[in-house]
């Protein structure tokens, strides 16, 4: 269909006569909008210009329109309103009864034009926005710390209640969680720590060999893995794997009002949902750390044998000399604390989910990022502490 068929017109002694035709429907709304705006602009042409004389009224003949929907009706209504604003009359002819009803409907809607606040891009405003963002982020950190403490408090209270009445503990739920976050994580944790142990050993041999210090590779692998890497790797893996799952679970329960339902039935969501999860992480993390450290030492040994040409007996012998129980304890002592931080953060973020799916995704991301950050901060604090007490 050509454009002219939709709307054509001519000026006739102060009257603009428009003839509409074809489909005045959603599909053609874009073209119609343009055409109408063009004609509207021409009615406003100044006296004395070369263009046609300005019209005092507009006549629209809809006799040739074969399809008409709310888009067409609204465009017509909009034309009427624009003309009225210029103190011009609009007369419509050739409109069948059924379409008249539609036009009437559109006449009643949109009465005060929707006004949008202008967004504005002035530099002052941009600076102010940037400052606001920073300010909000800072006060956000404070609020996070406060709510973290509050959650720790509630959890401790729930824990004490459970200690007084051990039968209230959700043992099945806890065992189920332990299976999920502990047992099922074993393969991937073993694999990753094994690989990291192997990589460290390989790098060690490659560089230490230049000084003929091959044997110290074992010291490095042993101490690094037991004190730092084992627990850090495991904590980061668990934060990504189980922390995100906790947030998503609690978040979707929050979205579907399941948590409210629990509350109204007289259950404490902290006791039923959060405590088992946090306790399970506290238990699972040392176990996984132990397994992970062993896998890393094994990986290191394998590389020492195959790449460094070091006999396994020598590797083990050297390991015995290089490490002692203290290194082992340093790693394992940190693990439960990291488990607790991951669990509490994950559950807290889950409870902050609001109605939308986007918010669920956002909280899950936040939970993982914050957990990993806190795990590293905690590790630093522990390093300072152990250095101070000479461990």
């Amino acid at each position: 269909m050509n454009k002219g068929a939709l709307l054509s017109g001519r000026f006739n002694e102060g009257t603009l006569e428009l003839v509409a035709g074809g489909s005045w429907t959603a599909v053609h709304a874009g073209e119609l909008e343009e055409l109408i705006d063009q004609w509207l602009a021409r009615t406003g042409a100044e006296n004395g210009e070369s263009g046609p004389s300005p019209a005092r009224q507009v006549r629209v003949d809809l006799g040739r329109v074969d399809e008409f929907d709310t888009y067409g009706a609204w465009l017509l209504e909009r034309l009427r309103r624009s003309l009225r604003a210029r103190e011009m009359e609009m007369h419509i002819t050739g409109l069948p009864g059924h379409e008249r009803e539609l036009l009437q409907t559109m006449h009643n809607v949109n009465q005060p034009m929707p006004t949008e606040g202008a967004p504005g891009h002035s530099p002052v405003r941009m600076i102010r926005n940037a400052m606001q963002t920073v300010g909000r982020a800072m006060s956000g950190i404070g609020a996070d710390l406060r709510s973290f403490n509050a959650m720790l408090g509630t959890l401790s209270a729930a824990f004490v209640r459970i200690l007084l009445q051990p039968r209230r503990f959700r043992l099945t739920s806890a065992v189920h969680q332990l299976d999920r976050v502990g047992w099922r994580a074993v393969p991937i944790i073993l694999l990753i720590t094994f690989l990291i142990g192997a990589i460290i050993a390989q790098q060690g041999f490659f560089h230490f060999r230049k000084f003929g210090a091959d044997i110290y590779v074992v010291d490095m692998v042993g101490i690094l893995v037991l004190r730092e890497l084992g627990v850090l790797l495991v904590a980061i893996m668990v934060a990504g794997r189980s922390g995100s799952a906790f947030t998503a679970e609690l978040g979707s329960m929050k979205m579907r009002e399941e948590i409210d339902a629990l509350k109204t039935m007289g259950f404490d969501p902290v006791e039923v949902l959060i405590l088992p999860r946090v306790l399970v992480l506290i238990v699972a993390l040392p176990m996984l750390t132990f397994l992970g450290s062993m896998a890393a030492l094994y990986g290191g040994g394998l590389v020492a044998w195959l790449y460094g040409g070091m006999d396994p007996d020598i590797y083990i012998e050297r390991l015995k000399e290089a490490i002692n129980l203290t290194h082992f304890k340093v790693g394992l002592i940190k693990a439960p604390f990291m488990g607790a931080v991951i669990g509490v953060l994950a559950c807290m973020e889950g409870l902050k989910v609001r109605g939308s799916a986007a918010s669920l995704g956002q909280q899950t991301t936040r939970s993982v990022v914050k957990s990993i950050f806190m795990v590293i901060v905690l590790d630093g604090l522990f390093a300072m502490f152990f250095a101070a007490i000479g461990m």
Partner: protein
Amino acid sequence: MSSNIIMRTRDLSAGFGDHLVLNGLSLDVRRGEILGVVGGSGAGKSVLMRTILGLLPKRSGHIEIFGEDLDEIDDERHQTIERRLGIMFQQGALFSSLTVLQNIQFQMRENLHISQRLADEMAVSKLEMVGLQADDGAKQPSELSGGMTKRVALARALALDPEFLFLDEPTSGLDPISAGEFDDLIRTLQKTLGLSVFMITHDLESLYAITDRIAVLADGRVVLTGALEDMLKSDHPWVKSYFQGKRSGGIAARLERQKQRS
């Protein structure tokens, strides 16, 4: 396309695994009517709608919409047809990350080349046509009440001025007064916009108030179609217990009285 049948299904079968939900179902929807689809819970009403819309694969049978067999047309034709359908899902299915206005404009942006101003005005018009206010447009779906969610879902279904509207239990979960208002709304819109409507419902009041014809779904097929009077005459056990049972609110008696008056 001279026929006045807007949608036709023949011998439609669909199911999950070895559970056949629809089993040789045939149904017509006439142009300009409101067809009410009833059936027990789990009878397959939603499955029927989803199969017609191509959201579930059919095992066998034919579906014709606007006189075109959906199996025999290419993707482009398919899209043109889809643009002429409006769909309102049982739970509303509003996009939770978009505002009400953005929800309504979603299809406009994709399909129409119109200015932002016209899109805004059209979205507000639709919102007002379903009985909401312009300033509800800025709300997030999570801030809406149940009735408002349904209205926004309807407004979104009407965004492109469809010819054929699918409604899955539009009044379920509403109180009787809101449900009544919603029924009136659907009727008014159907008249002004000249729509054909396929409406799944549980609500006898809606059936009584606004449907032109009723189709009863049982055992995977349509066991009966006709006006409310035909339902009351039927001997089918489910139809009987539904339309004449305790919860039917005396529809039969009401219909009788109405007939005597006229």
